[in-house]
């Protein structure tokens, strides 16, 4: 990292050379643990001084090697992750923890584990529904993860260390929310592309360093004069993972600011906090099973209720996005999905109904996970912006 670079400049540096800090820390003797999705409880790793490092795909790298393990009509993000793994781009990892966020992810990481040797791997099962028994089962899963992490490191996760780790990660969540609040003014004080850069940086460095970075970014952004321009549209993007700023810039262009997001590479992991319960595993169970809201978990308005009240159901599942739309003064929603994502694909018609019920203009864009897919995406986004017209 360049000496002295701070705030947004530092976030950009980390974004552009993600693994650099992890490799430095590894050289100092720290162990780096990869994780592909937001269902992995980073708090436990932090409590053991492990460095969690998010595994992303790369839409700029053509997928060639992954064909050995995964079929082509398959979540392209996971295919790309495996491809990079097989090309040695994640060789510095000491291990990884994956979660059953969806079937493609489970399959991809099992193939990964069978083709790439790591000293440590753990797979966390996450129930797909919230019903009697889910909670206890998932707490058991967290207990099992704790054990394998402890035996890998030869250390015990003490209550004190776990509490400190949860506090550090909660602080990160609060700081990210504070950063997102800076997108409420018109024009927003920070662009969608810059925000993505920050989030991706956070998932590449230890939590304390991330929190320091966030403090610097927030201070800088609050008083900057060179922020984004006012543009005709204020958009919210919903979908699976956005992980490349070119993708965000394709949507923003000259006509739109992305002011809020709900996807796995954005606000989702920071929306709420882990409660500091007496048995800390209870708070973690509750957070990762109940409070995280990606579409992979089936939810009904009232637990156990089977009566169908579509409007109430939509409100209970997506009400928080309605709050985003109001709070961030959004005038258009783009639902964007990288192809072959079943969890989000199944959710999309329902969430569209929800946006329609709010009367908020929306469009659905499905695309490939490649740089070349961005130009045609531009036409669709522009077409949508022409349909909604400038913000009143």
């Amino acid at each position: 990292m360049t000496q002295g670079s701070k705030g947004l400049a530092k976030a950009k540096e980390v974004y552009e050379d993600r693994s650099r800090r992890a490799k430095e820390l590894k050289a100092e003797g720290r162990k780096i643990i990869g994780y592909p999705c937001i269902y992995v409880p980073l708090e436990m790793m932090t409590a053991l001084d492990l460095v969690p490092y998010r595994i992303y795909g790369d839409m700029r790298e053509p997928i060639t090697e992954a064909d050995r393990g995964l079929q082509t009509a398959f979540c392209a993000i996971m295919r790309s992750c495996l491809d990079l793994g097989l090309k040695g781009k994640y060789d510095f990892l000491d291990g990884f923890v994956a979660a059953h966020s969806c079937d493609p992810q489970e399959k991809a990481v099992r193939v990964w584990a069978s083709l790439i040797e790591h000293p440590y791997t753990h797979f966390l099962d996450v129930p797909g529904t919230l019903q009697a028994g889910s909670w206890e089962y998932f707490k058991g899963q967290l207990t099992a993860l704790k054990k394998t992490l402890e035996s890998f490191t030869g250390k015990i996760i003490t209550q004190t260390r776990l509490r400190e780790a949860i506090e550090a990660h909660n602080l990160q969540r609060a700081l990210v929310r504070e950063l997102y609040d800076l997108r409420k003014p018109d024009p927003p004080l920070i662009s969608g592309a810059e925000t993505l850069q920050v989030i991706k940086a956070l998932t590449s460095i230890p939590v304390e360093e991330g929190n320091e970075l966030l403090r610097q970014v927030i201070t800088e952004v609050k008083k900057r004069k060179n922020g984004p321009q006012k543009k005709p549209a204020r958009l919210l993007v919903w979908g699976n993972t956005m992980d490349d700023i070119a993708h965000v810039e394709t949507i923003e262009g000259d006509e739109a600011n992305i002011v809020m997001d709900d996807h796995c590479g954005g606000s989702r992991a920071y929306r709420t906090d882990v409660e500091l319960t007496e048995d800390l595993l209870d708070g973690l169970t509750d957070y990762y099973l109940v409070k995280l809201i990606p579409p992979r978990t089936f939810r009904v308005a009232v637990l156990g209720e089977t009566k169908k009240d579509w409007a109430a159901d939509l409100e209970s599942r997506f009400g928080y996005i309605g709050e985003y739309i109001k709070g961030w003064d959004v005038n258009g929603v783009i639902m964007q999905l990288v192809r072959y994502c079943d969890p989000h694909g199944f959710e999309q018609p329902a969430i569209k109904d929800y946006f329609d019920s709010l009367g908020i203009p929306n469009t659905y864009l499905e695309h490939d996970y490649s740089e070349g897919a961005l130009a045609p995406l531009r036409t669709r986004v522009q077409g949508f912006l022409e349909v909604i017209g400038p913000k009143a």
Partner: protein
Amino acid sequence: MYFAGVDIGSTMTKIVVMDGAGNICSRIVGPTGPEHRRLANEVLTQALEQANLSFGQIDYVVATGYGRVNVPFADRQITELTCHARGVASLFPTVRTAIDIGGQDAKGLKIKDGKLLDFVMNDKCAAGTGRFLEVLADTLGLELDDLGGISLESTKKVPISSTCTIFAQQEVIARISEGLPLEDIVAGLHNALAGRVARMVQRLRVEPDVVLTGGVAKNIGVVKAMKENLGYKILVPPDPLLTGAIGAAILGKEITSKAMAEGVPIERKERHLEEVTFFK
């Protein structure tokens, strides 16, 4: 006053010059090709000659289509989605669904009161576009323009199970070797194409009137198959390739009239009829 709509599609370039009353003074349709993409200025020059006009007499130029960014002399770029919707609605004011099947893409537009409400687009896979028919006409040794007429002779269309261009090609070869009648195979291909596009457009909840545009709309066999797949009568404009360019010219005219009515200067670029330079 005069307005130009320049629609640079992936396969064809279309230009319409329109006067203040909405009459079309000239129209040009020619292949886009790598050279033409650079030379949109030359195509416009031809259109101007046809209309007996000079570039200075054109009050507003709107560029649209896949290559809209390659028109340095355009005052504004508007997507083909909006331009097609406007163009189709000017020809068929009661249109609610427009389907445009071009050389390398297909789109469905939902329109109400002349305005675009929603759209779907396939710009990825050749199946469901004109390219599908081009490849298969070639496989069958037929001229693209003859496919429509031939298919009308069919009494029993051959089901083509795959809508992937490459697999359809293999399937067609297998059917030929089985000795099935050519017209039935061609009718089967039209049905495969129309079915694929219809399924995409159904996402918009198709309502009549339905208008079909783009080069493929010239194929009577596809129009018929589209009708069978959607269950609605299909309207086709006399010049189905031109709707985007017509829409672009109309939008240019509307932008100009609005600015004049509001008494604000027309936002226009300092422009010259020049070729795009990024290839150099």
